[in-house]
Every structure is written in C-alpha cells, then in structure tokens.
C-alpha cells in the first residue's frame, strides 16, 4: 500500500486506464525501515556489498515469459549496479541450477550463497495469468538467512521496467533509508541541433528527449522541488532571459527586465526561485515568485553574484561571489541575513550544488587552467577532490538521494555527461549522443513518467 500512496494521482489514473500495475502487496512484512546498517552512508563505496541476482523462476512455465526470466534479472542487476553500492556476483559462480532457482526462504540454501561471497540475494518469480503478469521479488540477507523485503507486482509485460525500478527503490530504501534515484531524470544541454537546447533523459541516461526548442543558446536548467517546473535561461529573444516553464502543460513565464537573467535555483518546497539579474547594472541574486515577480534582492555586494543553490530546508543559500576579488562560494543565512565565505582554497571556485542530504556542497575549482570537482562540508571542512587528470570536469549536480554526482567532462575529447559516486568512485559516461553535452541537472525523485 505504501507504494500506491507514493504514486501520484495522474499515475494511478494512467495505470488504471492502460491496465498496468493493478495490485501491489507486501506479502511478508518482516522489515524495519529504520534499520539501514547494511550500507555505511558516510562512505558506502569503500566496500561494495556483494549481491547475487539469479535468473527469475518462470512460475507459470509458459514460453511467453521465458525470455523475461533472463532479461528482468539483468535489468535489476544493472539498475542496482548503477548506484555504485553493489558488487554484482557472476552467475557462472552460483552453486545452483540456474534454470531452476529456489526463490523462497524455506527452499534457499543460504550457505551456497555465503560460500561464493554473497551477502545479499535477490530472487524473482514471474507468472502470467489471464494476460496479467505477476512479479514476485525478494531481497534476502544471506548471512542472517532472512528475508529483508518481498514485493509482488501485477501489470502488463510492458510495465516490467517500472516494476523492477520500483523494487530497486524498495531495496535502496531498506538499505539506505532513501528510495534512490530510479524515479528521477536528468536535464542537460546538448549542442546536437547546432544550438544549445535542454534535453531530458531517464536517471540512467536512457531516452534523451529534447525539451526546449529556442534554436538559440539555452542554459542553466533548474528543476523545481516538486519536479513540475523547469526554469532556465535562453537567448531566444536576444538577451539571456529567464524562462519558467511547466514540464507537462504548455505554460511559460518570462521576465521583462534588462540585462542578464541567469542561474535560476528553486527554493525547496516553494513556488519561488532565486536567480541572478543585472537590470540594476550589477549582477545580483533576487528572490522571485514562480510567476516571475521579484520578491526581494538577496545579495548586496558590488560585483558578480551568481549561481544560488539552496540548503534542503531552504533556510540557507550558497552562491558564488567575486566580493573578495576572486570567485568564491559563500553561504547566506536567510533568517539572520549573515553571509559567510565557504571556500578559501583555490582562486576560482564556482558551480556550487547543495546536497539533498544537507551536509555537503559539490563545486568546481579551476587551477592551472584545469577545472575539477570537489566536495566540501557545509561548515567549510573536509574538502575532498573527486576528479583529477581527466580533462575539465564541470557543472556537478547531486542525485536526489545524495549518493551520486552527475557532471560534464572533456576526458574523452568533446564535453559529455558522466556520473560518479559522492566519493568520486565509479566514474563513467552516462549519455551517448552526438555533439557536446554540458550542464547536467539531476531532478528530484518525484518525476512522473
């Protein structure tokens, strides 16, 4: 039931109409969501958890779903491997009949799994009944020899990706306390059509679709925290102007102000955003309504103030300012109005993005002409370098669970989109598209498909 409650009304309607997931049951509730001692979230990537995902059992036995008993566990493996938390064990090493997996606790010989090093095991059973597919998925702790979470999903065969992603979300929730990134999307810029436009892909870089059609330079995509609005800058009308566009309806707001209108950042939980405007002759950050009306000015310092990013509770705003002579990151407390400097090392610190966990800010530093990505504690301590000696690495953006960072890099020539874990491990290319891709922005976890 909890999963249904998570679904948005639109989605439920959609499901009903196309006969997708019609039921979802927790068939063995033996878990305590508060226990996430499996993954050390201070640095879960130091040691990846060995996970085994055998082929699924074809319970109804029909040839119609035989192929899915192989492709679905592969999809599940890939989806979980994407997080960087797991070491996926090779099926060749499994001490079992691959074609006839045991999928419930009473039948599983857990020692056969611990013997090959598996600490977690996910089993699946699929059956087709009256044109509706049922998928049973179970996560086991092989050391404790117990079920962690079990779910049954019903739907059409074309809903299997959604079922797998949903279960992966459950797995992540029980291991980390966060449902992960599987409901999220990534907006980025691509020069594919000759001009820079915003594209949106799934969290894993699949299905990139063009979102803007200004046929001009378009920059700085920014998701609202409910995932319903995208603010960005485009030269579509000459000046670099701010656009606030609804993602599903054809609604768009622009501002009638001179000068630049750049780097929008939505206030979490509100229909308000901060952005840099220069109509006064100085580049200052303003707070705006989602309708594009200025509420107030947030920075008061002669010189460049750009790139606001909000703490998860919206009470603090980090931004880039040249007030001390070089671009550095500052934090403004919204209640007291006080501003403090966050970065002191390096002479060119820009592109801050505040983690949704709240504790860290990721940013880029330019040193000796090269740009690399760092994280820093919100208190200014614990500065960690995440990229090195691999071209320019820019525009970092946190995943909604704070476990991954998407960024663009020139490590393979032209700029492309890459991801890595919050600790800089598992760096890999995310999107394969012709042209140059830059400025990725990870959405919140609430995007409807």
């Amino acid at each position, binding site marked *: 039931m909890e999963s249904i409650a998570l679904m948005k009304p639109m989605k439920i309607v959609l499901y009903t109409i196309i006969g997708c997931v019609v039921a979802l049951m927790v068939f063995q509730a033996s878990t305590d969501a508060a226990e996430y001692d499996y993954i050390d979230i201070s640095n879960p990537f130091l040691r990846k958890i060995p996970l085994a995902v055998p082929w699924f059992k074809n319970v109804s036995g029909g040839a119609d779903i035989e192929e899915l008993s192989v492709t679905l566990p592969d999809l599940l493996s890939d989806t979980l491997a994407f997080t960087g938390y797991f070491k996926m064990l090779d099926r060749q090493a499994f001490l079992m009949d691959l074609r006839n997996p045991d999928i419930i606790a009473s039948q599983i010989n857990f020692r056969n799994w611990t013997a090959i090093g598996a600490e977690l095991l996910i089993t699946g059973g699929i059956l087709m009944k009256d044109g509706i597919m049922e998928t049973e998925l179970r996560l086991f702790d092989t050391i404790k020899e117990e079920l962690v979470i079990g779910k049954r999903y019903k739907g059409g065969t074309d809903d299997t990706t959604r079922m797998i992603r949903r279960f992966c979300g459950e797995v992540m929730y029980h291991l980390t306390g966060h449902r992960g990134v599987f409901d999220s999307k990534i907006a980025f810029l691509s020069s594919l059509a000759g001009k*820079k436009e915003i594209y949106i892909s799934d969290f894993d870089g699949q299905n990139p679709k063009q979102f803007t059609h200004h046929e001009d*330079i378009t*920059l*700085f995509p920014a998701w609202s925290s409910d995932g319903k609005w995208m603010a960005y800058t485009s030269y579509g009308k*000459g*000046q*670099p102007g701010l656009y606030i566009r609804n993602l599903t309806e054809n609604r768009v707001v622009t501002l009638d102000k001179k*000068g*630049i209108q*750049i*780097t929008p950042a939505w206030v979490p939980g509100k229909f308000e955003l901060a952005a*840099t405007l*220069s109509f006064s*002759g100085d*580049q200052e950050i303003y707070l705006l309504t989602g309708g594009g009306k200025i509420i107030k000015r947030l920075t008061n310092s002669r010189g*460049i103030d*750009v*790139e606001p990013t909000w703490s998860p509770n919206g009470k603090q705003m980090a931004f*880039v300012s040249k007030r001390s002579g*070089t*671009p550095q990151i500052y934090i403004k407390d919204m209640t007291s109005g006080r501003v403090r400097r966050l970065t002191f090392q390096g002479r*060119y610190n*820009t*592109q801050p993005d505040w983690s949704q966990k709240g504790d860290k800010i990721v940013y*880029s530093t*330019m040193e000796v*002409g090269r*740009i690399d990505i760092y994280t820093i504690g919100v208190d200014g301590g614990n500065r960690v370098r995440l990229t090195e000696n691999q071209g320019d690495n*820019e*525009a970092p953006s946190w995943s909604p669970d704070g476990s991954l960072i998407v960024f663009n890099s020139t490590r393979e020539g032209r700029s492309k989109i890459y991801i890595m874990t919050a600790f800089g491990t598992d760096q890999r290319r995310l999107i394969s598209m012709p042209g140059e891709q*830059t*400025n990725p922005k990870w959405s919140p976890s609430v995007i409807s498909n």
Partner: protein
Amino acid sequence: MRKKLWIFTGLLLIVPGLLFTVSCAKKVVQSVPVEAPAAVVEEPVLDEAALAAQEQAAQEDAARQWQMQAEEDLQQTQLAEQAAKEAEMERAEMAAMQMFMNEDVYFDFDSSALGDMAKNVLSRKAEWLRMTMDASVIVEGHCDERGTSAYNIALGDRRAESAKTFLLDLGIDANQLSTISYGEERPVDMGKSEESWAKNRRAHFVVE
C-alpha cells in the same frame, strides 16, 4: 486715212488677241492630260516653303536637342561625379564603420577593467559615434573558454557595461548604446592558447 489707221491698229490688236484666245482655248483642251504633271510641277514650289520651314524647325530642334544633350551630359557628368563622391564617402563611412565594428576592446583574465589600450580604442569609437548620431550600437561582452559558463556570462555583462560606461563618460548618448553578454558562448578564436583566449576576452561592437 486716220480712221483706217485706227481700224488697222484695232485689228492688229484684236486678231492676235483672237488668235491667242483660240490657241489658248485649244491649249486648254489639249493640255487637260498635261494638267496633272503641271500640278506635280507646282508642288516643289509649295514644298520648298514647307521644307524651308521644316528645315528651320529641324535645325531649331537639333539645336535644342544638342542643347538638351549637352545639358544632360553635363548633368550626368555631375551626377556621376556626385555618385563617385558619394560612393567614396560611403566607402569611407563603411570603412569607418567596419573599423568601428572590427576593432575589439580587450580585457585581462577574470577582469572587466579597462586598460590604456582599451580606453584608446573606446575613444576612437566615441568619435565615430559622435559623427554617426543616428547609429545605435550593441556592445557585446565576451569571455574566453576558461572559467565556468554562468560566471562568464556575468563577467561578459560587466565587460560590456564597463565599455558602455566609459563611452557615456565621454558624452555619448545612452540611447545609442545597449549591451548583451555572451559569456564564453561565442568565441572568435577556437584555439587553446593564451593568444586565442586573449582574442576572446573582448567587448565587440555591432551597429544595428
């Protein structure tokens, strides 16, 4: 005897007169077919006058035409001279405008401050703007590719504003000038050397 003389004289006058009359009458009858050539013969007489008139008219016409031609030639020469002059001026103006548009104002890295060179270039631009009061100009602010996209748009904005402010201080009408920043989005030189970057850190002027 005297009477005889009068009669004789009279006869002498009448007979030839009769003779003449007869011969004339005969001649008339005989000359009917001849009359047409006689009329043809008459024509040159009439034509001569017309010709004379025509000739005079033609001469006057020719004189007029010559006069007109001369005037036209003169006019055309003048026009050509004027056009040449205008073209020359236009060329000069175009050259001035080209120079105005081609000569960029350059900046140091991460700076929107105007050096002496930049100020000299801007002073020349001010001269042109004063001479060309009807021109409206866009000052574009640009950056090199180093640094990051958003910061560079802000920096380009400051470069354009910095150039504009200098021109306003030289008395240029604010209505002649507007600014736009392209940050690092529109480099003129795609190279990866300081030489290329220096060319890209610029305020560029475009006449609308």
